């Protein structure tokens, strides 16, 4: 497959933005009878015309919706609504929402979009796991986060977990007459479990995991050892799986023939808890999504809720947000994107401890001074930031940005990238071609390393990123080497942004509205996405005019990026596999949510 070089890729321009209504007008000519209704929020299409519509949107030269952001569902009292978000890498701009109504609540079925966008396949499994919505024609429709045999579809509104108390927080019983009540006292098993009535644990046999071996293996394919392929389960406890990630790898000798990622070992119910929390309670939870980049996660969520509320933060708060976001990007790239890859490639912990952690501590001290916490900052608020930075903070930040960080970036490049051993291990390993990357919905440094110049800070600018002068670096081949080098280049661009932001930051207020614990948002829905260190993180929020979101969905960049693991690893040795996984740069908190 042809790889686009940086010159060939079209520059991302802010062309005419299409919204739901204008696209629907075009769509009426393109696909006959597809549109049910259209508004600026999105287009509702006919159930049986969905695939044709997506196909047309992707192939239309004007619209060119080639990038699949996310698919999720909303459990309304009378129907399931499956929501697709697609956008265009060549045009940029906000994504388009497409909706399909499934009126049959007992057996909701919709066609799988996997034939149009590869990226849909993995995300549709998530929707099936959470809602029980079936996707016709899906190649691998199994539970993804929960185990096979788990009872119920947890994100349906009818599903009540063992510790369920009320639909919305704050719970009435939380501080009853000055006493707390231990929730274990309220459930019969004194534990977070529910068993169906006819369940017999004495004879229960755990459902065996289905291991998918390489598709279409012929006898001639297994060449090296003339034996049967071997399936190796790597993880969930493995030093190089970055937490609790697991892969089932089919091997021919040492060569990878097939790979299947297995998720869910850190699935901690972010979305279910998020739908019960009041809006402000969710901010600290977003910190724990991508826990190396907490500030970016907060920003994305806060921007989403601000769009719902219709407020804008003051200037100083916008600058502080940008400063925090770029510092976070530097920390995250140094520690996760660069340091961990080297330890995966056999440098043990030296790059993390020497290059990754030293600067991380300096930056994290700044976060602690501003917010009070090292990692889980909880700094962003709706309509601003929690409070202004303390006196002298900006000077320390300037000193760090002007004198210290550029040197570290140079040092990293000199010793880590221009390194003979690294060259041999990383070049032409784990190649991801540009067209495949786009079709899989890959985002962040991985997408740009494949040669696609698509950065949300430029393509769909949020906050005040359109004011700054910075480049979007791209790679040429899309291998481990490119991803690594790209992250160092991105650190340089972040330093550039930080210099401008620290120079231009005005004085003034940091909150535009009165701080409120509990507030209602008007009815509506929003998809807010940001360019986090691990790709596009999107928040799909549906408000029903109450204090809690009706639907709270997070599109995690690294979860989507992981779908390409098999594509990148097949044909390489098992020793390269961990390097490829490292270069994807995953954080299980956001992969499993």
């Amino acid at each position, binding site marked *: 497959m042809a790889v686009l070089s940086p010159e060939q890729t079209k520059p991302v321009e802010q062309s005419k933005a299409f919204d739901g209504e204008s696209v629907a007008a075009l769509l009426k000519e393109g696909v006959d009878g597809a549109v049910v209704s259209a508004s600026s929020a999105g287009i509702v299409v006919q159930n049986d015309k969905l695939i044709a519509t997506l196909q047309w949107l992707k192939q239309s030269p004007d619209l060119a919706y080639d990038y699949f952001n996310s698919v999720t569902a909303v459990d309304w009292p009378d129907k399931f609504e499956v929501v697709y978000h697609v956008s265009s890498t060549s045009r940029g701009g906000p994504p388009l929402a497409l909706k399909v109504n499934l009126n049959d609540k007992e057996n909701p079925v919709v066609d799988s979009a996997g034939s149009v966008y590869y990226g849909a396949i993995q995300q549709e499994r998530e929707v099936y796991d959470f809602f029980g919505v079936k996707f016709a024609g899906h190649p691998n429709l199994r539970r993804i986060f929960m185990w096979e045999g788990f009872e119920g579809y947890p994100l349906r509104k009818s599903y009540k977990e063992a510790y369920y108390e009320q639909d919305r927080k704050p719970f009435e019983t939380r501080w009853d007459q000055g006493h707390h009540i231990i929730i274990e006292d*309220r459930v019969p098993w004194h534990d977070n479990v529910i068993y169906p009535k006819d369940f017999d644990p004495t004879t229960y046999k755990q459902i065996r995991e289905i291991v998918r071996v390489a598709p279409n293996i012929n006898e001639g394919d297994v060449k090296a050892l003339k034996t049967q392929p071997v399936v190796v389960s790597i993880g969930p406890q493995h030093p190089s799986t970055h937490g609790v990630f697991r892969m089932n790898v089919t091997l021919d000798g040492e060569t990878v023939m097939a790979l299947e990622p297995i998720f869910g070992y850190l*699935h901690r119910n972010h979305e279910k808890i998020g739908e019960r929390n009041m809006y402000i309670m969710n901010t600290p939870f977003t910190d724990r999504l991508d826990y190396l980049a907490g500030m970016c996660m907060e920003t994305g969520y806060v921007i989403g809720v601000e769009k719902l509320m219709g407020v804008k933060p003051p200037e100083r708060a916008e600058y502080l947000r940008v400063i925090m976001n770029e510092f976070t990007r530097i920390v995250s790239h140094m520690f996760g994107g660069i340091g961990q890859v080297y330890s995966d490639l056999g440098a043990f912990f030296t790059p993390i401890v020497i290059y990754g952690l030293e600067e991380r501590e300096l930056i994290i001290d700044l976060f602690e001074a501003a917010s009070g916490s090292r990692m889980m900052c909880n700094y962003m608020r709706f309509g601003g930031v929690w409070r202004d930075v303390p006196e002298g903070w900006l000077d320390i930040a300037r000193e760090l940005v002007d004198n210290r960080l550029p040197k570290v970036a140079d040092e990293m490049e000199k010793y880590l990238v221009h390194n003979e051993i690294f060259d041999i291990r990383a070049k032409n390993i784990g190649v991801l071609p540009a067209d495949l990357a786009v079709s899989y919905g890959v985002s962040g440094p991985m997408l740009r390393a494949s040669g696609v110049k698509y950065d949300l800070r430029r393509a769909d600018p949020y906050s005040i990123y359109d004011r700054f002068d910075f480049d979007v670096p791209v790679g040429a081949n899309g291998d481990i080497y490119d991803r690594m080098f790209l992250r160092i280049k991105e650190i340089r661009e972040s330093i550039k942004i930080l210099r401008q932001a620290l120079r231009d930051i005005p004085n003034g207020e940091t909150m535009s509205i009165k701080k409120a614990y509990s507030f209602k948002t008007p009815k509506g829905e929003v998809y807010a996405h940001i360019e986090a260190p691990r790709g596009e993180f999107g928040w799909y929020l549906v408000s029903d005019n109450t204090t809690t979101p009706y639907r709270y969905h997070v599109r995690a960049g690294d979860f989507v990026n992981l779908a390409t693991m098999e594509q990148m690893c097949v044909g390489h040795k098992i020793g390269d596999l961990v390097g490829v996984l490292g270069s994807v740069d995953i954080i299980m908190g956001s992969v499993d949510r």
Partner: protein
Amino acid sequence: MSFDKSAPLMSIESDDAWLDEQVKKKVWTGPLDQAIKMVDSLYNWGRRGSIWPMQFGLACCAIEMIAAGGGRFDIARFGSELFRPSPRQADLMIVAGTVTKKMVPAIVRLYNQMAEPKYVMAMGACASAGGPFKEGYNVVSGIDKFLPVDIYVPGCPPTPQALFYGFLMLHKKINGQSIRNAPWYQAEEHEAIPEPILGPDIFDPRRAVEIKQLLGNESEMEARYIRLAARAELKHHKEGEAAPKPAAAKPVAAKPAPKPVAPAVAKTPAEAKLEENKADANFAQQAAQHHAATAKDDAPETKAADDAAKNA
């Protein structure tokens, strides 16, 4: 075998007066207790100074665990810098992060694979009790539901300093142990903790029969719901009030007790505590037993042992 523990460990009597004198001078003789304490002190000193943790991170806390290994905090000062990827080589399992139901079988298996003596540290709120994610359907309310935990480190996530304080507490605990009563030196064999099974929901195979019986007995199940709801309310019920109505047969319907019309007389915390205990005498008894057990476990025998070492 029985012998007098206070008697000297060995007595040497010979005809040679000079030899006797030399033996008394050069060879330490004393009671068995004291000898064991000497061995303990040396043994514990060696063991607590080189606890090898398992390289095992679950979630956010693992990042702070790595930071603790970095140059700024330097876990090597406590002798624990050698994170081992294999459970066979590790002494300490730091459960650093949220324990999910899907992950628990793997954690229990890892614990079973560790060689004794082994310790478990629950790092952070999630591993201790479920933390902010406790209400989630896939979250276990603390790893202590399945494994014996030695040290709890609070925080979300705990700072590296907090982790080090946990290490110091673990050192203290190890100091209090003796080869005579440490569980791994007893004659009887320890059975491995059975791995929980992922059915419609997670269950411990040791509780399978109990679960089956209770699920089969519908009236008992209903009674249990009512009793639990009543108990939860009783705990916080003021004195002199009517007993709470039994709640409906579902935990979701369990409502707090009706608020008292007249403000109740303020009580001292001790009185309130006493009343609480009365409401659940069984619980108090268990707690007392637990306290006795832990006190016994952590008895500071170090001082005596040190004295013995000095005497030697």
